């Protein structure tokens, strides 16, 4: 088959990050080529270079064998490279047809629009996709799946020969995914080359012809999708280091129980969940999206109400009805969305660290003790290794990893010794991840009780002394951490639907 795209020796640097190192990638006509790797592996960056959103710092791109330089989104679409972004970029107030032809509306004289032609052309594209959709439907009335189809139609209207799809199924249900795959297969049979970015392993087997794996901004390998076992692809993604270095699980069986949750329930989201966390222990919560892990954390923290359940801190029952109750009991919750719930990003490091403990720095007259706050902030900056020019630096200017450390400092200052980390490394680049891991281990070693919620299995396995697995609001089992537990065992529990359910093992 003919080669459509060849990328060789691609280099890209951002301030402080070497995002792509000598990366190569190629795409043939009429194939679905999956691009895989963990978050931060560089997949999206590579594709943004191909689609003209980023300029490369080095390397070459061949299209149809000719060297090309897509220096703007427009240049890329003119070449025939279309991209469907992870976050849909449609104009919700316009109709489907108006979205498809935005920027290229059929016109009459004096800049008047030719609306009938616009709708007819769009209807034609929809027909070629076997898509039943009214071109005049306003986009915000469509389902996410249909909106995705509109994006694909838009990309096709440019006569795209290359279609980049960045996690197209992230927001789709099973039936909608099947619909999408029908269209992808149709496009493939017509000779369109499709680059498919996804984290979902089963999809790769269903739709991809070849798989290229990236890790830490580097090219790992390209393999045949049909004949390569998933486990091999996973190990290529995760890399050897993680599997080689077995986790050193400390013996915490005799430590005092810091947090005990009994029979926590709320509607269908949390169903009779009980667990304990000992001092010095890291308990990882694994499960698929929507399994109820975040809901449990928020319920324990008092951010959401609960129907039933008892919470004991250091053996004493506490009444938690609001986050302030939880904080008083020594429980801290670090949200997965740091920017929305964790930080005042426009304020400096000093203010953010002190934010939850301001009463400590307030004189009787209500005046803030800036000197005390500065000293405290500097203490934590040193202790946690927060990389910032000074404690006056605005938090938004820090990297994701350092922002995360600022949140940690805030809770430590508040004397929280039970800490819930919800997706602690989301949006943090690979290098900084290991620093966050180290920090969590240190916090545990100092006797704090840590709960980590993570959707990335390697992360859960890398960190957890014990692994609690949830499915559909139920705790389906608790596995020991370390080498004896495999990803398969976790996945089995994570997909254990109601019928097969029987409480596994002792839940303590």
């Amino acid at each position, binding site marked *: 088959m003919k080669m459509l795209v060849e990328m060789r020796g691609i280099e890209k640097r951002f301030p402080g990050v070497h995002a792509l190192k000598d990366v190569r990638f190629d795409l043939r006509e009429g194939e679905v080529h999956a691009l895989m790797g963990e978050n931060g592996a560089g997949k999206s960056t590579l594709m943004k270079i191909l689609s003209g959103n980023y300029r490369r710092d080095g390397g070459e791109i061949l299209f149809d064998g000719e060297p090309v330089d897509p220096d703007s989104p427009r240049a890329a679409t003119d070449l025939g490279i279309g991209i469907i972004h992870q976050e849909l*970029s449609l*104009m919700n*107030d316009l109709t489907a047809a*108006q979205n498809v032809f935005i920027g290229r509306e059929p016109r009459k004289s004096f800049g008047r629009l030719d*609306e009938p032609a616009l709708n007819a052309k769009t*209807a034609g594209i929809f027909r070629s996709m076997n898509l039943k959709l009214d071109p005049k439907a306003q986009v915000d009335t469509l389902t996410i799946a249909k909106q995705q189809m509109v994006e694909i139609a838009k990309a096709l209207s440019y006569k795209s020969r290359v279609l980049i799809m960045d996690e197209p199924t992230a927001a789709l249900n099973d039936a909608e995914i099947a619909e999408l795959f029908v269209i992808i297969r149709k496009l493939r049979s017509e000779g369109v080359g499709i680059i498919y970015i996804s984290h979902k392993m089963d999809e790769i087997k269903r739709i991809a012809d070849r798989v290229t794996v990236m890790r830490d901004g580097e090219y790992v390998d390209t393999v045949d999708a049909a004949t390569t076992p998933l486990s091999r692809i996973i190990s290529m993604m995760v890399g050897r280091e993680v599997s080689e270095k077995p986790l050193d699980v400390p013996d915490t069986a005799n430590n005092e129980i810091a947090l005990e949750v009994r029979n926590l329930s709320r509607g269908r989201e949390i169903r009779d969940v009980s667990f304990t966390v000992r001092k010095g222990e890291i308990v990882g919560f694994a499960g698929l999206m929507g399994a109820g892990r975040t809901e449990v954390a928020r319920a324990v923290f008092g951010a959401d109400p609960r129907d039933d359940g008892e919470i004991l801190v250091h053996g004493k029952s506490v009444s938690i009805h609001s986050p302030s109750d939880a904080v008083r009991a020594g429980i801290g919750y670090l949200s997965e969305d740091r920017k929305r719930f964790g930080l005042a990003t426009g304020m400096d490091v000093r203010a953010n660290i002190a934010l939850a403990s301001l009463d400590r720095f307030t004189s009787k007259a209500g005046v803030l003790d800036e000197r005390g706050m500065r000293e405290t902030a500097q203490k934590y900056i040193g202790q946690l290794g927060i990389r910032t020019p000074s404690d006056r630096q605005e938090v938004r200017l820090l990297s994701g990893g350092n922002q995360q450390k600022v949140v940690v400092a805030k809770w430590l200052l508040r004397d929280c010794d039970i800490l819930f980390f919800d997706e602690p490394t989301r949006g943090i680049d690979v290098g900084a991840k290991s620093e966050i891991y180290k920090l969590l281990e240190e916090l545990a070693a100092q006797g704090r009780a840590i709960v980590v919620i993570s959707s990335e299995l390697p992360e859960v396995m890398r960190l957890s002394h014990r692994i609690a697995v949830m499915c559909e609001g139920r705790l389906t089992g608790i596995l020991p951490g370390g080498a004896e537990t495999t990803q398969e065992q976790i996945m089995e529990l994570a997909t254990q639907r109601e019928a097969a359910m029987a409480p596994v093992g002792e839940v303590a």
Partner: protein
Amino acid sequence: MTQTMDAAQTGGKKRLIGGGAQQRLLAFASLIVLLIGFSIASPNFMQTSNMIAILQATSVNGVLAVAATLVIITGGIDLSVGTMMTFTAVMTGVVLTYLGMPLPVGVVTAIATGAFCGLCSGTFVAKMKIPPFIATLGMMLILKGLSLVISGTRPIYFNDTPGFDLISRGSLIGEIIPAVPIPNGVLILFIVAIVASYILSNTVLGRYTFALGSNEEAVRLSGVNTDRWKMAVYALAGGIVGIGGLLIASRLNSAQPALGLGYELEAIAAVVIGGTSLSGGRGTILGTLIGALIMAVLTNGLRVLTVAQEWQTVVTGVIIILAVYADMLRRKKV
């Protein structure tokens, strides 16, 4: 094919009527209720002369509100329409009274001055990335100051330009049909509204006006020169404000340099009552017209009922909050 064509045309019309239709229905219903209420309360209210007074009072605010609607649909805001109106009136005075040019030159001056001022605001917003609120706040003050400087803080009268006062106060319709002496100012408002409405629903400029307010980044990634189009919208809005300047100058037969502040808020109020979303992406000229009429009817009706003017302002404020709250409720339901 015929079917597609028909369907498509209905679609085009839908655009004109749809999008916030409920809000506008609500606004229209409120207008009717106000009209009925006031006419029951006072027999003087429904008289033709009073109705025409209401329409006349709507004309300037209506034209400014149409201009503000365009900018607001892009997701921006224009605080400068009031003082810009005054500035265009003053420039018209300079051309007609100081320089003694003929009337058509004055008309062109007003519109061109407005379009240029709008282009400046648009440049600040699009090219210099200054938030619209700040850019047009600055413009508002600049134009207020310039009006006073150029006129020497004195009104410029148009006594030397015969027929200037007829722009607003004459009645072409009245000459043809004496029973309905609708003033030219009102006629001009309706023409402006129809043209603006046509531009919004049937031209590329209109399409990008909505698209910018809906998702600017997506428009940019589609290869559209968003800066240029945004500047064009502000310039068009400025040109329309220039027409407003002509109307007010003609009505007062003078350019009053101290006038203008506060008009921008009345215009924005009319836009909001008419169901245009301040976050951009949706809105209609028809809604804005209804909004402007509601405000004029309120002011007039309360005056006919001899309610103190201070209270009229309070009522207008309450109406704005209720209108936006109704919109919020509606959107929550969706």
